[in-house]
């Protein structure tokens, strides 16, 4: 393969290649690092990039293991990991001054599984601060730019991971998704992003934003790659009490191949309320793909009026849980610290938290505290949870009749830097199609559907719990329809 081949090769291709010639892993990594050197200053996907020497040393070990005949699912593949996932010995900042110098003493379970599979983690990617945002602009350090148009955002909060994939700076990536943070940047960068069923991937080591909504999600440039990555990280974890009890691993790649050869007919629901308020050209791209899918599969329109309330319910729950999860940041045991002598804990904690957190984070913490406070909890937090149940009931009903729901990933094209974050409600409304999956615990995937005026548009599929293989299948069908279309940004 040539250098550029390496850079945009799929993990699936690379793995086959490496199996016959493991030493090529080092050539491949060299190509990746060359690519990063060339484009990173423009894109800025990474907060922390590991040194090439360090990574190559690790890779040499993988090469050895491969040569010894070990079966490593992701041998030598360069993975970018979102900077809210704990990596032992590698700085993990959540794109916040609060954790600017925090080096975790332990690996997240997903990271441990990656390492066991022979993957090589090359760096930690940029994100919205503490995952709070949809554009990666609330990062305390710098914004990441969309490789498709450097004046525009890559989406968020896993913007760095998505941009790295789109720019050829990694072959696989991990993101996290609380209200769309994997699917949104995937849609904006023409990559694939999956939010698994809640509980399918361990949250141990994922620095919490909203515990009942967060999931780590696999991201890649192709569906098959996402399937491979998901197979590695979707394992029951006894350290996470919300981890679904399951035996062993699932081979999603194999299941995908089975479905692609048997080609079952899907029953797809099109929720009409979720197809409103789209930018015209975005709608056109989506309908073009949807129409072709619905030509081969059964599509029906359904109406779920309560989806209108998903967005406020989501933000209420997310902010409430965030205010609780972020209470621990006081500078005593890790993170930003200040002088303590002669000062009360109230003074010290307040200074640490005011200096360490950015405005959006502080805002959500304050609102979250409000939502949970005596006198308002019933009216906001509990009420939002009742709406959550209504939503789940509705979609449970839909999933009895349908395999999947098809909907837009994002209602708009990637906005320009600075455009979206001026108005909080406008920013929140970007999530209108993605929050439902988090609220009801369903898996959902964003797949590239095409370009609207050279900017990526993603289509989303959502299914009942543990329907990942069907989502991958639907994604693969879209991928098939788009075969031949340009998927590399002009960077």
């Amino acid at each position, binding site marked *: 393969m040539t250098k550029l081949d390496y850079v945009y090769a799929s993990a699936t291709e690379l793995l086959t290649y490496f199996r016959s010639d493991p030493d090529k892993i080092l050539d491949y990594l060299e190509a990746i690092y060359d690519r990063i050197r060339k484009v990173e200053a423009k894109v800025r996907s990474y907060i922390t990039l590991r040194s090439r020497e360090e990574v190559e040393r690790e890779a040499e070990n993988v090469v050895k293991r491969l040569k010894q005949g070990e079966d490593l699912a992701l041998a030598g593949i360069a993975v970018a990991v979102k900077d809210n996932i704990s990596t032992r010995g590698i700085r993990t900042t959540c794109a916040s001054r609060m954790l600017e110098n925090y080096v975790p003493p332990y690996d997240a379970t997903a990271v441990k599984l990656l390492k066991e599979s022979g993957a090589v983690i090359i760096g930690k990617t940029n994100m919205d601060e503490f995952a709070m945002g949809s554009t990666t602009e609330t990062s305390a350090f710098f914004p990441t730019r969309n490789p498709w148009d450097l004046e525009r955002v890559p989406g968020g909060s896993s913007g760095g991971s998505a941009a790295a994939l789109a720019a050829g700076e990694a072959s696989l990536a991990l993101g996290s998704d609380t209200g769309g943070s994997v699917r949104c940047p995937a849609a904006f960068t023409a990559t694939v992003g999956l939010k698994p069923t809640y509980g399918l991937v361990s949250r141990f080591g994922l620095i919490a934003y909203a515990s009942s909504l967060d999931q780590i999600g696999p991201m890649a440039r192709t569906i098959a790659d996402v399937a491979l990555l998901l197979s590695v990280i979707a394992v029951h974890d006894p350290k996470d009490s919300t981890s679904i009890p399951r035996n062993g691993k699932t081979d999603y790649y194999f299941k995908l191949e089975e479905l692609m050869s048997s080609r079952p007919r899907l029953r797809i629901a099109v929720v009409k309320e979720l197809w409103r308020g789209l930018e015209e050209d975005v709608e056109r791209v989506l309908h073009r793909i949807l129409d072709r899918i619905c030509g081969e599969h059964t599509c029906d329109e359904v109406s779920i009026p309560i989806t209108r309330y998903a967005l406020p319910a989501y933000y209420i729950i997310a902010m409430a849980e965030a205010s609780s999860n972020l209470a621990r940041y006081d500078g005593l045991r890790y993170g930003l610290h200040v002088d303590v002598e002669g000062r009360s804990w109230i003074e010290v904690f307040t200074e640490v938290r005011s200096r360490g957190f950015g405005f959006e984070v502080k805002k959500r913490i304050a609102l979250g505290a409000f939502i*949970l406070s005596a006198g308002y909890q019933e009216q906001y937090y509990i009420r939002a949870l009742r709406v959550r149940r209504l939503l789940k009931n509705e979609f449970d009903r839909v999933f009895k009749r349908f395999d999947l729901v098809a909907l837009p990933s994002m209602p708009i094209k990637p906005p320009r830097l600075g455009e979206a974050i001026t108005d909080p409600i406008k920013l929140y409304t970007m999530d209108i199609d993605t929050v439902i999956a988090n609220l009801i615990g369903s898996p959902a995937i964003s797949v590239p559907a095409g370009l609207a005026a050279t900017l990526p548009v993603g289509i989303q599929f959502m299914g009942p719990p543990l329907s990942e293989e069907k989502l991958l299948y639907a994604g693969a069908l879209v991928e098939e329809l788009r075969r031949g279309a340009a998927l590399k940004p002009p960077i």
Partner: protein
Amino acid sequence: MGDVRIGLEIHVQITALKTKLFCPCPADYRGKEPNSHVCPVCLGLPGVLPVINRDAVKYAAMVAIALNCKISDRLVFVRKHYFYPDMPKNYQISQYDGVGSTPFCREGFLKLTINGHEKIVRIRRINIEEDPGRITYPTGDIATSPYSLIDYNRAGIALLEIVTEPDIESPQEARAFLTKLINILEHLGVTDTSLEGSFRVDANISLGGGSRVEIKNIGSIKDVERALAYEILRQRTIIERGGIVRRETRHWDPVRKVTITLRAKEVEEDYRYFPDPDLPPVRITSEFIVSVRRSMPELPDMRIERFMKQYGLDRYHSTVLVSQKWLADFFEEAAKHYTRYKKLADILITDFLRWVNEYGIKPHELRARPIHIARLLELLDKGLISIKIAKEIMPEIVRSGSDPEKLIRTRGLLRITNRDELQQIVREVMRSNPKAVEDALRNPRAINYIVGLVMKRTRGRADPKLTIELIKNELQRYKAS
């Protein structure tokens, strides 16, 4: 006394557990280097998650059953938010009675016998929760220290919070309640209250329907009684002077023996309780409760009844023995070797216990073995030693765990029953005490003095009956000559 209403909130560590409540760190942190029994989970590092200790639930269920509580059908944990340097997450994982949450159990009771009559103290609820870390101060004083020193070894240790209704009406009742509660916990093996910090009490008290004052963090039953007595006095004084008792939180100073203001309670802490999203509720099935009930150790009240039936002891002896679990255990072990149970019980609750307390020996430090006491009593029964000797060597047995037989032999304490030997001694004593002999010849009752001298001379070993007989013989001889 007037309308005194006291409610207690008792926090006990489940010291029987080997690990913490939500992580597998070893729970035996006492005396260990600060911050050596910690892990990412109990330190509250970013990204960590809690996993419930199964045995904590088992012990909580035992206590709930022993206190006649209604156990919830599910185990729900909530987050209780407040900021403090000993709180790794700045929220405590605890339990609550709110939307989506429920205490572990509620509506129980404890029956006490005070001054002959029965009193029932209702238990409002029992919660399972985690202990925070420990803060100490470089200057030793919270007020003057420029900074604090934090040890997170204790953070995450499992606690039971036992809350009573305000049914207690006097400091004495409070003491009786706590004594019985501790006794039950020890019998269940849940808490070893001799361990420092394993047991803390908050007391709430109001007089005549007035404001409720909370006294926080009292560390011993004695201090609870003292603190309440002091509070009653303090509040009465205010009322008598025409003032109004303020609703507040106070702190008991065990050195100065007063309660002092900690903070005014007008601003209620808003703990923002909500069910912990990291811990889906666990169903508590009736099968589980039945299995716990079956495996439960004997409760004190049941043990007292059994002692009375099985060993024929009276209620008094049974109660004293059972009131300290280790003593009851000691009795039962000794009873395997010595079957005159009343004698055994008696010596244990009198001489034996007296010396244990005198030497301040803790139950786990006790060297004396039940078999030693059994042997001692056998020696007594066989007439090989006198009661006096038995009482004399008891402290030695208690303190050093010496075998009484060995002790008696090495000290030569066996009762002198040999006629010739004793006669020799009697003659010597009478020879050296002519005045006593004269008195005895005149007054037969004065013979006791000579007996006393013989006892003194033989250090209590002389057989009393034989001694008297021999003295009488000698006196006859004196009379003759």
